[in-house]
């Protein structure tokens, strides 16, 4: 097998630890991922050897730091195949990125009576900023409905457009279900209606090749910490033509060109959108994570994760009294399920005791859960450092849970 899982697991030191005196199984990857040693060491090296604030500094280390930061931008550009470096804006995470776009785009293009389309599969972070925008501007939300597999109803989507539609905000991959949405096609539909699209890629970039130009996404947003990078980092890709048009969101040091008390003019892209000292250590760590992903190979990652998905689906569906939700055609290896008659919290508490980290609850997707009349599920989200043996261990733990609460 080309995919050397043992080597990979050794790259992630935390996977070697024990929890509750059991080997640690980390199945909470949709919440955040673990970090390969090289990412940790990359950031250490900065603090131990080169740390200095970036941009406009005249001294040696400031120069080193700035180059590393701008090289990281180029690494991200290549990773998502953006056309230009300055279309890559660094933020503190997906939530911050969506807030940025909702504010900046909203200030310029959304006014009373306008409409914004989102989907039923969105994370709260891709719902609430649009709600707030609607509230501020007197606009309204239209929601793309789903079927019972947790798939968007594309026909219904097309019907939501009107002359009032100003933007579509859509997740690439849903964090509650793992469903992959046909974003390319959906962007095409939006563009035919003259409407730009923001894609929430928080659960997508780490699982398969994303090409923002091929998708023709107007905005593409994701978090570093969910793709094996550090916390406090994130990216907004935006098309130059739109980024030039919309006003900045945060303002302050470095993103300005000229400041007088009367009037301020803004710096060019990408700086216009990067106010204040960026998390440059984090960003450089993120570039190291991307290099790690690329060396491992996104195609290999995707096909190994598909194996995990198939094996997990098979094993979990064999368990009596386990309801596996949303087995969409096209999805990443997220398993969302409930055990009949057992509260997810009770199950989660016991599964934890076997050293297995799963998440329980509504996964920041309340409206979605309500659509299915459930308060929450148990969610196991797997990535390429997980194994089929770990899935077996989860199944064993589930059997124990059933015994206890029978």
């Amino acid at each position, binding site marked *: 097998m080309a995919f050397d899982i043992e080597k990979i697991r050794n790259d992630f030191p935390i996977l070697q630890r024990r929890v509750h005196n059991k080997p640690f199984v980390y199945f909470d990857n949709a919440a955040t991922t673990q970090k390969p040693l090289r990412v940790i060491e990359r950031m250490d090296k900065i603090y131990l050897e080169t740390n200095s604030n970036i941009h406009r500094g005249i001294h040696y280390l400031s120069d080193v730091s700035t180059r590393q930061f701008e090289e990281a931008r180029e690494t991200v550009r290549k990773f998502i195949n953006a056309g230009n470096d300055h279309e890559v804006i660094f933020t503190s995470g997906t939530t911050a990125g969506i807030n940025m776009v909702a504010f900046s785009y909203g200030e310029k293009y959304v006014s009373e009576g306008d409409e914004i389309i989102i989907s039923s599969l969105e994370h709260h972070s891709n719902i609430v900023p649009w709600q707030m925008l609607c509230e501020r501007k007197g606009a309204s939300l239209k929601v793309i409905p789903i079927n019972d597999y947790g798939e968007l109803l594309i026909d219904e989507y097309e019907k939501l457009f009107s002359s009032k539609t100003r933007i579509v905000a859509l997740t690439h991959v849903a964090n509650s279900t793992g469903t992959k949405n046909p974003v390319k096609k959906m962007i095409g539909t939006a563009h035919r209606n003259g409407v730009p699209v923001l894609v929430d890629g928080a659960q997508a970039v780490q699982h398969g090749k994303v090409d923002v130009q091929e998708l023709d996404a107007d905005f593409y947003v994701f978090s570093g910490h969910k793709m094996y990078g550090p916390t406090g980092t994130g990216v907004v890709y935006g098309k130059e033509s739109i980024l030039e048009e919309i006003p900045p969101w945060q303002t302050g040091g470095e993103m300005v060109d000229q400041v007088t008390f009367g009037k301020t003019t803004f710096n060019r892209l990408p700086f216009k959108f990067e106010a204040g000292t960026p998390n440059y250590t984090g960003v450089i760590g993120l570039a190291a994570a991307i290099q790690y992903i690329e060396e491992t190979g996104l195609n290999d990652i995707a096909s190994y994760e598909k194996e995990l998905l198939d094996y997990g689906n098979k094993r979990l569906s064999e368990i009596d009294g386990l309801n596996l939700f949303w087995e969409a055609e096209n999805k990443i290896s997220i398993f969302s399920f409930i055990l009949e008659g057992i509260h997810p919290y*009770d199950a*989660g508490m016991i599964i934890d005791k076997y050293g297995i980290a799963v998440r*329980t609850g509504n996964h920041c997707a309340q409206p979605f859960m309500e659509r299915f009349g459930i308060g*929450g599920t148990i969610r196991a989200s797997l990535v390429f450092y997980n194994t089929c043996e770990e899935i077996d261990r989860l199944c064993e733990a589930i059997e124990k849970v059933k015994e206890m609460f029978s």
Partner: protein
Amino acid sequence: MAEKTITEVQDEIIEEFEIFDEWLDKYNYLIELSQSLPGIDDKYKSPEYLIEGCQSRVWLRAEMENSKVKYTADSDAIITKGIIALLIRLLSGRKPEEIINTDLYFIDRIGLKENLSPARSNGLVSMIKQMKLYALAYQTKSKNE
């Protein structure tokens, strides 16, 4: 009948749990306790009595009977319900002063601390807070009367 103090009952519970070496036995005991909890009438399972908490839902009611606070409570999660049973055993039927000032050290000592972590959001932390608030409210009320 000389009533036991809260401290005495806490020590009693700690002793009961001491025979369990394993978390599994502790949790099984909690499940057992949950079955002994009378719970709460469905009609009270309303937002009015609901305690916030994202993982499991907890409902709590309090009444005053002969200068003592009587609690009834329930949850949709069994482990949570088991701990509620312990809390009711400890605090229900006590004078408000006693409840307000008590320090619930038993949770730590019987190794169920994780269930009272604010991070777990099972509603128990808020429930204890709410139990004390009820007691405080009754105390203030009786002083004003």
